[in-house]
């Protein structure tokens, strides 16, 4: 038995949480002794709908194990692993392999995402049904990294996945409008001589897919929103009753295109860092509920991929270990929202979108998937963390809040700054 004494819940109530075996057996004051957690906030363990674990295929950048460690250190108890591995997760055998690697790591729940199309090529549907009925029980499908840009393929995929009870997570990027793109399109891209990635390339796909979701009655999730216009389109789609959810990354909530001036590839990401106006619109969308979740788009790359010319460098940034601090900054420190909202966007809502059971709430009888945060702590983000990669754009920045413990199925996966068995 483990008792977490004196925790503060998202509601603000101070109480004790008792865990026996892998489940929560009591939420309420108890006379039992336990771990003093006064000053710590207890939230349901975080759930990331958007993680690149890089295995199989790119084990120099990340493995399921190293990504699980990084996730545990960031307060996560479940990660959805994106399909752009090598081989691509477009068959039952690959998703089952990823799931098995997750179980072996044992630090959190790894839920594979299945590719929408074979090889992420955008042409033919992948083995959607057999991935859904496989041991990995895939419910989220995405070609992330690529956009499902062919409207007919997207329409069929939405229709098909609907019958599986799943959701399509779209990487909204019109490919023709973004050929060779290197950064946000605008005055700065003009000055730096880098090819621009225009907002309309994101917004036009979201608008099209929202209408396809309406027509098919399917569920649509938009990955990594980055523009003010995209927030408007999603807001419009929601008022129309379309089943659409949206995600924002920690980096798009905090960082802007100005950083590209350095030509330092650590700031190179797809979709790109945008203007301050966009960042403010994303924050507003996250606060008012237009945006449903924070997804990290944790995209580790080995240093060879970043220690080079900007145009030569890979797109992507790591994100698992500072996402909670960014969420705290944007929702709590700003005074704009509360811990309930943070808990929603980091845990319950992503669990709901991903049809993931056993995560997203602290309640009697539920699996004990928890995170304990010290909101008063302040820390300097380190580049080298539990991830195998150090492409961290927040490195050196001062952020508030620190994950103190993470509990997965009743056991510490992260305790006092140390990952279990790490």
């Amino acid at each position, binding site marked *: 038995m483990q008792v977490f004494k004196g925790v503060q819940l998202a509601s603000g109530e101070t109480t004790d949480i008792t865990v026996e075996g892998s489940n929560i057996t009591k939420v309420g004051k108890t006379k039992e002794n336990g771990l003093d957690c006064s000053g710590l906030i207890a939230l349901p363990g975080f759930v990331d709908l958007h993680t690149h674990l890089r295995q199989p295929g790119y084990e120099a950048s990340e493995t399921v194990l190293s990504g699980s460690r990084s996730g545990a250190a960031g307060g996560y108890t479940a990660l959805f692993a994106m399909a752009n591995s090598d081989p691509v997760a477009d068959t039952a055998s690959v998703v089952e392999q990823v799931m098995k690697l997750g179980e072996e790591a044992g630090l959190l729940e790894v839920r594979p995402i299945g590719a929408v199309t074979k090889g992420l090529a955008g042409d033919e549907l992948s083995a959607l049904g057999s991935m859904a009925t496989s041991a990995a029980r895939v419910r989220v499908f995405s070609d992330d990294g690529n956009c499902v840009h062919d409207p007919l393929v997207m329409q069929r995929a939405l229709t098909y996945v609907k019958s599986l009870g799943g959701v399509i997570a779209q990487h909204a990027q019109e490919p023709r409008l973004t050929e060779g793109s290197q950064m946000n399109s605008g005055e700065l*891209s*003009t000055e*730096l001589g880098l090819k621009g990635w225009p907002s309309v390339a994101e917004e036009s796909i979201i608008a099209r897919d929202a209408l396809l979701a309406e027509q098919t009655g399917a569920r649509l999730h938009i990955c990594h929103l980055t523009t003010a216009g995209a927030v408007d389109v999603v807001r419009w789609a929601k008022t129309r009753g379309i089943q659409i959810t949206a995600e924002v990354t920690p980096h798009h909530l905090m960082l802007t295109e100005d950083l590209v001036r350095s030509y330092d590839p650590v700031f190179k990401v797809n979709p790109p860092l945008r203007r301050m106006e966009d960042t403010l619109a994303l924050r507003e969308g996250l606060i008012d509920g237009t945006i449903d979740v924070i997804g990290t788009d944790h995209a580790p790359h080995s240093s060879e991929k970043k220690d080079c010319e*900007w145009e*030569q460098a890979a797109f992507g940034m790591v994100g698992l270990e500072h996402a909670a601090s960014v969420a705290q900054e944007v929702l709590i420190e700003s005074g704009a929202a509360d811990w309930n909202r943070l808990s929603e966007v980091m845990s319950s809502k992503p669990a709901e979108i991903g049809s993931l059971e056993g995560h997203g709430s602290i309640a009697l009888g539920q699996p004990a998937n928890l995170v304990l945060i010290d909101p008063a702590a302040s820390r300097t983000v380190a580049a080298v963390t539990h991830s195998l990669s150090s492409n961290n754009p927040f490195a050196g920045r001062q952020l508030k809040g620190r994950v103190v413990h993470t509990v997965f199925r009743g056991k510490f996966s992260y305790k006092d700054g140390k990952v279990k068995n790490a």
Partner: protein
Amino acid sequence: MKHLTSIRELDKGSATAILDNADELGAVNTREVKKLPALRGKTVVNLFYENSTRTRISFEIAAKRLSADVINFAAATSSVSKGESLKDTAQTLEALGADAIVIRHPMSGAAHTLASKGWISGSVVNAGDGSHEHPTQALLDALTIRQLKKSGSDLAGIKVLIVGDIQHSRVARSNVLLLSLLGAEVTLAGPETLLPKTFSALGSEISHSFEEALSAKPDVVMMLRVQRERMQGTFFPSEREYAAKWSLAGERFKMLGSDTIILHPGPMNRGFEISNEAADDPRSAVLTQVRNGLAVRMAVLYKLMAGEG
């Protein structure tokens, strides 16, 4: 000052000082013994990832006139994506004794990256990076304009019109920054597909009509080449239509003032962006630009390598 990768690294004083120095050093090129001992014992490497004859030769002669040893390293463009990385190539060259690397690269920011990543300790001179900048070209243009249009040290009040494929042009970007720093009024002109409105943020006026821009009586007209190698897809309907609207030829050529000077960074596509008539006109200062290129590059190498050394 250790590197020159962007005009943004210069202020008015340092830019003017380079031009003054170039005026003096340029005189060496008319002497019988065209050599100064300033960089004796130093090694300059021309690291070129793009084909360029005139810029490479200009830097080579400039370094030699200052008594530096020169090594030309032509890296095929394909080796940017395959084979040895820029980091390894630069470190190898430095291990062989390079004191300065003059780099031309198809990717924007490559010179800045080479200068700022800590890979090497020597100087870096940007000889053109993608669509970003070509600072020594802007310096030679400024020197040419100053010599021909003005007796003072800056370019206050001079009206410069830059015409053509602005979008893909590093020459245009460096020129807008430098010429406006020196007080000139710069107007960019071109079809909107090759001249997005975001260029106004660099500090220039924008026009989508060559005739309109010419009617403002510019002191200098600089014609740019259409850079097909940097284009993805079509930006204008046909070469004929482009030439009909944007070539310095015929009626538009006749609109030039009697003392308007014509510049072109070269290589020229005669009959496309510029007519024979215009290219060979006495108002064309193209060869003065070439001579000044040598002088400016001597001044830049001298400033970066002899200064604190």
